[in-house]
């Protein structure tokens, strides 16, 4: 029985890992784009982006999940009542039919991209102006300065806050059960409901611990690799 539960939970932990992996995959580049948007010298753009980031960071992720889960369906039925049909409504229809895991990945990616964008912004703006100027007076081009001088200093600055955020993401994935993503916590709760077993629920902690432990080791390794210089 024990082995069976462990294996079964592991299968559901893979769903958790998928949500984690895809969220990272999409939110990292999206976060970089958002950070550029919020630093844009084109004021309307940076204003709009900042408002967006404020809304996403200022409301619970659970609420955003629910919005992404029910929102498209509500829009589609409203549109059908009103006789409206266009590409956007069509897209909403697709979203409405999509697997809840897909919906969760979208909501998580947007949410985490906003958090990451703030970290990236801090990392980019934290590199002293003098570094760029030192490169400029040596006659280097803008891209040489970015790739050879500022990028590494940015990475060093963002690794600690990023590792925090990424480990938070591991645990936040459990929120996806609110929109019926059958991940590890939900699977464990079924053991209570169906078999009257409580321990599988607690046992899920082992998977989270193992995975976040692995990530911690990885980030410590990266930090150590970068510890030969100070910024």
């Amino acid at each position: 029985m024990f082995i069976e539960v462990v294996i079964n939970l592991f299968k559901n932990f893979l769903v958790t890992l998928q949500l984690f992996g895809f969220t990272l995959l999409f939110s990292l580049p999206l976060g970089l784009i958002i950070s550029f948007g919020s630093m844009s010298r084109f004021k309307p753009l940076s204003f709009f982006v900042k408002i967006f980031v404020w809304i996403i960071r200022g409301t619970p992720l659970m609420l955003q999940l629910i919005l992404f889960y029910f929102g498209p369906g509500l829009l589609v039925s409203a549109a059908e009542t009103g006789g409206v049909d266009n590409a956007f409504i069509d897209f909403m229809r697709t979203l409405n039919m999509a697997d809840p895991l897909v919906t969760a990945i979208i909501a998580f990616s947007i949410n985490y991209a906003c958090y990451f964008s703030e970290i990236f912004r801090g990392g980019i703006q934290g590199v002293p102006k003098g570094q760029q100027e030192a490169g400029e007076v040596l006659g280097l081009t803008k891209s040489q300065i970015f790739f050879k001088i500022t990028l590494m200093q940015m990475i060093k600055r963002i690794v600690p806050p990023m590792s925090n955020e990424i480990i938070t993401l591991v645990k936040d994935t459990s929120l996806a059960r609110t929109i019926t993503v059958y991940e590890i916590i939900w699977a464990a709760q079924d053991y209570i409901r169906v078999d009257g077993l409580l321990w599988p629920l607690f046992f899920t902690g082992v998977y989270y611990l193992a995975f976040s432990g692995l990530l911690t080791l990885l980030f410590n390794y990266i930090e150590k690799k970068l510890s030969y210089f100070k910024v």
Partner: protein
Amino acid sequence: MPFLEIKDIYKSFGRTEVLKGISFSLDEGEVISIIGSSGSGKTTLLRCLNFLETPDKGTISVGDMLLFDGENKAALKDEQIRENRLHFGLVFQSFNLFPQYSVLDNVTLAPKLLKKGSNEEIDKKARDLIEKVGLTEKIDSYPCQLSGGQQQRVAIARALAMNPDILCFDEPTSALDPELTGEVLRVIKDLKESGSTMIVVTHEMEFAKNVSDKIIFMADGVIEEMGTPEEIFENPKSEKTRNFLQNSLEKI
């Protein structure tokens, strides 16, 4: 014909006029020191020479090349600005070494990226420069492992590696503990001996007196007085110069 000629440079930030018509010239191998109170525009002038700021008006020429002309500054392309910068080197008050690179790599980074020779030539030259500033034992150290004085000497070697015609210093010792200023000033003195053309903004009056061929005293964005060290320090003509020198003596 002078080596460097600066004519009638104006620069404002918004409504603050910082430089109000700066003109001077410099021969090859000459050292000019710029003194003046805080806010008189010394840093801004050096930044204009290094094209970190664009003057509103005026001209800058080196040798027989007109590098900058306020009349058609809009036509100045990034590419051209980078070319122009190579005539000048700038040593910052706060060193601005690249923290992720060793001493050697700080010095070789720009020459290698800009393909100023084969890697062997560049390395060889960098080692010579690092020896010249007395840091051969520290060649593989990182900036965070160096004292301020050592960092500033690396910054000087880094600037020299690009073979600038004119090397500019912006208060190279102001960020240093008093006991470390000597080692940096000595390097600058050695450079003068070997014929470098330099512009040094400094608050070290004794140093300015000893090392310079010419002194410029700046006040409120203009050159209030210019002359040999004897003229400026022994017989200042302007009331403002006298007051400034008086004050800087009192501070010591």
